[in-house]
């Protein structure tokens, strides 16, 4: 019996996965270094997000719920940075809260680093409420009695003594809630936040598709989808941030994946046909 080496299709199907890994790595390095900048078509949810923040008046209070840890840093950090920068342009005051332990420190450090840019001072213009274990009851508590529910900020100051929360007794006095998150926290805000506040959403891309039903019903007023959405937002703000730096590599990693889904199907198809021909 004549033995034959594996056909090209067979060899393609049994390619070592490590070669694929290297290919992806090289693709990303290449397109990260690529100096061209493509302009995005700003998607409607991002535009709505931008417009909502544009409507804020100086001194308006915004709650940022930051629930991401380092694992989704590449998606959520560009979002949070862009949002804080925009809030500072509008001179809106903000407070942060985290239901994710790591995010307590990550978001506190990030805000501490960014706020001097806008001349923001802790306590006067922004504050961090720290970590809570159960967001639902925290929201319910804040609606009914905010100072008693939060008690103290991360620096140990009773929140009723913070200048920016002077006269604030309830979450109802906030204008807006912005949820920056990789997990299912936005339903908590949708379900338990007071009706006086608008909800804006910065999910990782994984969760964006599911949120379109909330955008349709108006339960969410705007959405920034992952790092890609952050790039669109940076374009609207006219700044170059992480999103803008990442977006070429995102585009072309998609091209690579689509190409390989096609190749994989082709190789399988050709291989089957060959085997059938050979009986």
């Amino acid at each position, binding site marked *: 019996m004549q033995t034959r080496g594996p056909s090209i299709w067979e060899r393609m199907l049994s390619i070592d996965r490590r070669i694929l890994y290297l290919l992806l790595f090289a693709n990303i390095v290449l397109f990260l270094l690529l100096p061209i900048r493509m302009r995005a078509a700003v998607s409607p949810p991002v535009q709505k997000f931008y417009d909502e923040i544009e409507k804020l008046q100086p001194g308006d209070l915004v709650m940022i719920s930051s629930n991401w840890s380092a694992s989704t840093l590449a998606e959520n950090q560009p979002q949070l940075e862009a949002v804080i920068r925009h809030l500072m342009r509008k001179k809106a005051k903000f407070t942060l809260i985290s239901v994710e332990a790591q995010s307590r420190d990550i978001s506190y450090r990030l805000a501490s680093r960014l706020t001097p840019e806008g001349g923001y001072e802790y306590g006067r213009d922004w504050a961090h409420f720290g970590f809570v274990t159960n967001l639902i009851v925290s929201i319910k508590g804040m609606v009914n009695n905010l100072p008693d529910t939060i008690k103290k900020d991360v620096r140990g100051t009773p929140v009723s003594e913070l200048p920016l929360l002077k006269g604030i007794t309830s979450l109802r006095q906030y204008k807006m809630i912005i949820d920056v998150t990789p997990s299912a926290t936005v339903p908590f805000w949708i*379900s338990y*936040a007071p*009706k*006086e*506040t608008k*909800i804006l959403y910065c999910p990782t891309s*994984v969760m964006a598709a599911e949120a379109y039903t909330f955008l349709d019903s108006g*339960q969410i007023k705007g959405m920034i989808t992952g790092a890609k959405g952050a790039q669109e937002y940076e374009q609207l703000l006219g700044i170059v941030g992480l999103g803008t730096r990442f977006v070429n590599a995102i585009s072309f990693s998609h091209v690579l994946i689509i190409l390989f889904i096609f190749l994989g199907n082709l190789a399988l198809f050709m291989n089957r046909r060959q085997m059938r021909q050979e009986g």
Partner: protein
Amino acid sequence: METLWLSGLAQYQHAADNWFAAILIAVIATTVLVSIAIARSGASLYIRRIPGLDAIDEAIGRSTEMGRPVTMIPGMTAFGVVAVQALTIFKYITKQIARFATPMRLLTGDATVYAVAQEAIQDAYNEAGRPDLYDPDAIRFLSDRQFAFASGVAGLIQRERVAANFMFGEFFAESLIFAETGNIVGAIQVAGTISFTQVPFFVAACDYTIIGDEFYATSAYLSREPVLLGSLVGQDIAKLLFVLIAITGAVLTSIFGADAPVVKLLGQPGGWDAFFGGGQ
């Protein structure tokens, strides 16, 4: 109030903000409880056989022809409602393959599920009349770390060249590693999960995927547990009620406009204030 609604700001603090919601909750809760009571009283409730079950049977059939082992993976599912229902399905599969003495492996990433699974699989072999086939070593707790567990599963699937791979429960990012390895060894794969973010990977890589509520229906169909059956029937009625309200409401909106009192009754804040008194 209307302007608030039109801008989409409608998170409710109390039932008084929207009595329609309270009425709907009461109706659905009653329906579910009544159906459970009917199921418990011994009446046999009908649940249709979903196509996913045929896919399971077909996979079992083909794996017995090959004589290679079958893997069952509840993944990292923590012990709870979902894990118990996944085990119901695994019990069914075990009973079927016991007739042909096909070997099985159950791989879990949760210690509590591991303990319960041992009991369940032993039961399955006893019920199939083949207690001799039960091998405690076939049920394995590999690791509670996501990727350590995934690589353990991948290694086993490749070493034993499994014939069929069943994945039921809750899955996270590791799902695609299982599906990919199963695909490489040419296993017939059926997955069932309530984790919608992982369903696409299963659809792309498995022969059949049982999606969302179908998962609960499968286990209720197989276990005939009255509470599950009754609840499922109650949920069905609620879903049809939602369909009915959506269609009737859309027709009413088309005829009378979105601000007509009759449309307001169907869930607009303050729609029922004339009857009950409102929130503000």
